């Protein structure tokens, strides 16, 4: 074999070693996984805490492996427990992460819900950074604990959930600040701003906060006026927005959706026509007994039984068996118990006068967003002829007849007269509400608007 062949053997050896080295390096990088050190730490801790030989043997034979919760219905795989190994062991309460115990929540067992449905993050990932989700190309980072109640709103009605007061407050702020005047949520609202049904899945808390304080900073040329919320209200409405992810819970999860609550019971009370026989505050039928004080007279158990089968507790009663589900019966019971409080009665729509109902309509469709909370106007609308503001509505009774108001609301006004035709047209306009606001609501709304004119004042246009 000549010399040139010998150099070949040298190269073979060299490249063989290089490839061998690379394979070993690749193997090491693949074999070293962050979660393994947490599992070893956990096993060490278990061995340390073992009091009997059996416990010790059990701890020593714990396998180091990926652990995961499979949630096929939610299309999720949560591997969080690969590092957070002690979430279900109360004796690990107060341990530093990742070995801390997760406080019990028996309504949401781990094996049925996993972790990411509430906490977000990346369930399939198995490194800290990736799993917690603050990495490029993952748009669901973990929800800060401050906003964790937003997750309740993905499945539950905000107002129904006594465990999520911040969420209820956020909804309250949303409904009373007139957001619906421009934004649609659940199909109800104006079309000047974007739809909010999936906003919580797309936007970060920081973005939302910025958006409320100075909309134009995150959405150039936004027509939305800056909002003046208190800090608590701001957090609450950000939280409420985060809850609007547009995800619909499947099967099992949807069946858990209704939390029996007084407000749920109130809706049922009106839907099922109870008012036809029973009265509250003097309103309603006289066939059955008045219910104002039923919460004082009857125990909750009695009421539950009554809803299941009226005959069983009141023999001979004419009330039929309605076939309420257990959840519905509980919600109705909650409602009747709450009737002792006055404000519940006054918020029953059928018991209110047209002006009060109209005010509700005014709030429901977000008229306040542009025309102001008490219809006094003041929201800036640059270059609008009306003093560059959206006009107040207090004196509409002087300028319009009821039918003119009807038309105005139903048809809207797309073109707002400009102060200076050379500048950009005013961004805000009056949407047409014809397809949204129903007849009865319209009558109530107009009644409310007409009632706004201050008593005894006659400016005389």
């Amino acid at each position, binding site marked *: 074999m000549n010399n040139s062949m010998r150099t070949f053997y040298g190269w073979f050896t060299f490249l063989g070693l290089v490839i061998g080295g*690379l394979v070993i390096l690749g193997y090491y990088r693949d074999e070293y996984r962050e979660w393994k050190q947490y599992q070893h730490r956990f096993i060490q801790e278990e061995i340390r805490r073992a009091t009997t030989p059996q416990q010790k043997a059990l701890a020593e034979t714990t396998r180091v492996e990926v652990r995961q919760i499979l949630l096929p219905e939610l299309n999720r795989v949560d591997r969080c427990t690969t590092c957070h190994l002690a979430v279900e062991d109360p004796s690990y309460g107060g341990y530093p992460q990742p070995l801390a115990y997760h406080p019990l929540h028996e309504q949401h067992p781990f094996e049925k819900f996993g972790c990411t449905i509430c906490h977000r993050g990346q369930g399939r990932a198995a490194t800290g950074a990736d799993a917690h989700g603050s990495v490029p190309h993952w748009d669901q980072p973990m929800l800060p604990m401050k906003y964790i109640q937003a997750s309740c709103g993905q499945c539950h009605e905000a107002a129904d959930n006594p465990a999520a007061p911040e969420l209820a407050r956020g909804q309250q702020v949303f409904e009373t600040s007139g957001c619906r005047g421009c934004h649609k949520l659940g199909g109800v609202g104006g079309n000047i701003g974007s739809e909010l049904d999936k906003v919580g899945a797309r936007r970060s808390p920081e973005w939302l906060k910025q958006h409320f304080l100075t909309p134009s900073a995150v959405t150039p040329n936004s027509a939305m006026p800056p909002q003046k919320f208190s800090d608590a209200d701001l957090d609450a409405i950000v939280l409420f927005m985060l809850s609007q992810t547009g995800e619909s819970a499947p099967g099992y999860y949807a069946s858990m959706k209704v939390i029996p609550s007084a407000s749920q019971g109130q809706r049922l009370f009106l839907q099922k026509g109870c008012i036809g026989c029973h009265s509250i505050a003097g309103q309603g039928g006289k066939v059955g007994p008045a219910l104002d004080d039923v919460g004082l007279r009857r125990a909750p158990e009695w009421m539950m039984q009554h809803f299941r089968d009226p005959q069983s507790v009141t023999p001979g009663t004419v009330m039929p068996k309605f076939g309420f589900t257990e959840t519905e019966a509980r919600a109705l019971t909650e409602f009747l118990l709450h009737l002792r409080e006055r404000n519940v009665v006054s918020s029953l729509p059928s018991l209110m006068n047209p002006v009060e109902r109209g005010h509700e309509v005014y709030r429901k469709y977000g008229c306040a967003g542009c025309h102001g909370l008490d219809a006094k106007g003041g929201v800036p609308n640059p270059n609008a002829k009306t003093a560059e503001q959206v006009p107040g509505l207090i004196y509409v009774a002087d300028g319009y007849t009821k039918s003119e108001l009807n038309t105005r609301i139903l048809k809207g006004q797309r073109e707002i007269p400009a102060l200076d035709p050379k500048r950009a047209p005013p961004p805000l306009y009056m949407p047409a509400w014809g397809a949204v606001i129903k007849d009865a609501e319209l009558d109530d709304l107009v009644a409310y608007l007409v009632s706004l004119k201050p008593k005894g004042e006659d400016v005389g246009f």
Partner: protein
Amino acid sequence: MNAPLLKRLWQTFARSRVGRSIFRVGLPESNLERSQAMTSSFLLHIQPAKVHKHSLKAGYSLGLGLISLYLFFILIGTGVLLMFYYVPSTDRAYNEMKDLQFVVSAGLLIRNMHRWAAHLMVLFVMLHLCRVFYTGAYKHPREFNWVMGVGLFLLTLGLSFTGYLLPWDQLAFWAITVGTNIAGYAPIIGPKVKYLLLGGNVVGQEALTRFYALHVIVLPTLALIMVAVHLWRVRKDGGLSRPDESGDVIEQIPLGQLPTNKSYGLMELARGTTPQVGKNPEDEVFSWPHLVFREILLFLLVAAVVLFLAIFWNAPLEEYANPIYPPNPAKAPWYFLGLQELVSYSAFWGGVVIPGLLVTALVLLPYLDRARAGVGRWFARERVVANSIFTICLLAAIVFTIIGTYFRGPSWSWVEPWQQPPAITEGR
């Protein structure tokens, strides 16, 4: 006998009953055995027993075709491993990518190797094409092998492009959307081709299914067959192209005029440029070990480079594909960015006419340019016109690709790469 230990062990095995039954010849010691090593092995016999010294010059071929072939082998190997996990479903494909990354042993490494080998293969097939042009190697008798090479180049692009969609992330979804839109610009057949590719008007499950079938069955099988034919023709055409030598060209004798005083074997009926064993003995060396060793060495080098890239740089994986939020700008794979840049000026001229003309010109080239001068030498002076035209086209393609890659920002506006704003997705 002072041979190294490994060699002695190998010899002992190769001469044993089992060894001989497998290899027939042990490590060759004589020239006879060196010939037998090539001709008696299925894997080696596609190559001749002796090879022209010119073919072994690294500076001539640069090993570009062989590198492409090795990358193709690596792609088949890693691709099969990926198929063990991958499911071509819009619901699951993306999740499988995540599982490969986070829980499958060596999953990320294998995916990285596949990705890098794929990009490198596109690059090296292009370089191979350039080499063959600049050395004038496409001329008689290799005209049709050049045409097959152009076909293999297009197949390589097709393989890479169909593979691009499979991870089903934003990058995949929008690159394929842009790429198939370009295909749709062709008149009359364009929209039909696009519909046929996607199985619909937009990228969705049907497109994924089709791209998957094309990527793992149709195109690789086609490519494998064409590679085999391509290599076989290289041998039949007398090995790699080289400068004409007087001894190489033999007048073919018409059958009817054969002298009658001699009996002829099949060898003498063969075509003029078939390697004439013994014709120029001083110019030829035995393929074993001169060719085979070089080939093995090159494979080791390619494998090492791919491994190195795969260990240190991960294949990208963006957000789950979302048809509602296109990244701005949405860009095609890099090898189509020159095309996308052209399309931004005119969909018809840039997306149809120019690429159509270029491919047609490539296919017709060996039949148009028939001058024999300058074959087998880099940048031969006799070929200055052809080389200049090719270089101008090549530079234009490179410049447009660079512009498309680095100088185009949101809405395909001009940006300087050093102040490139991040692609605008929906702000978070």
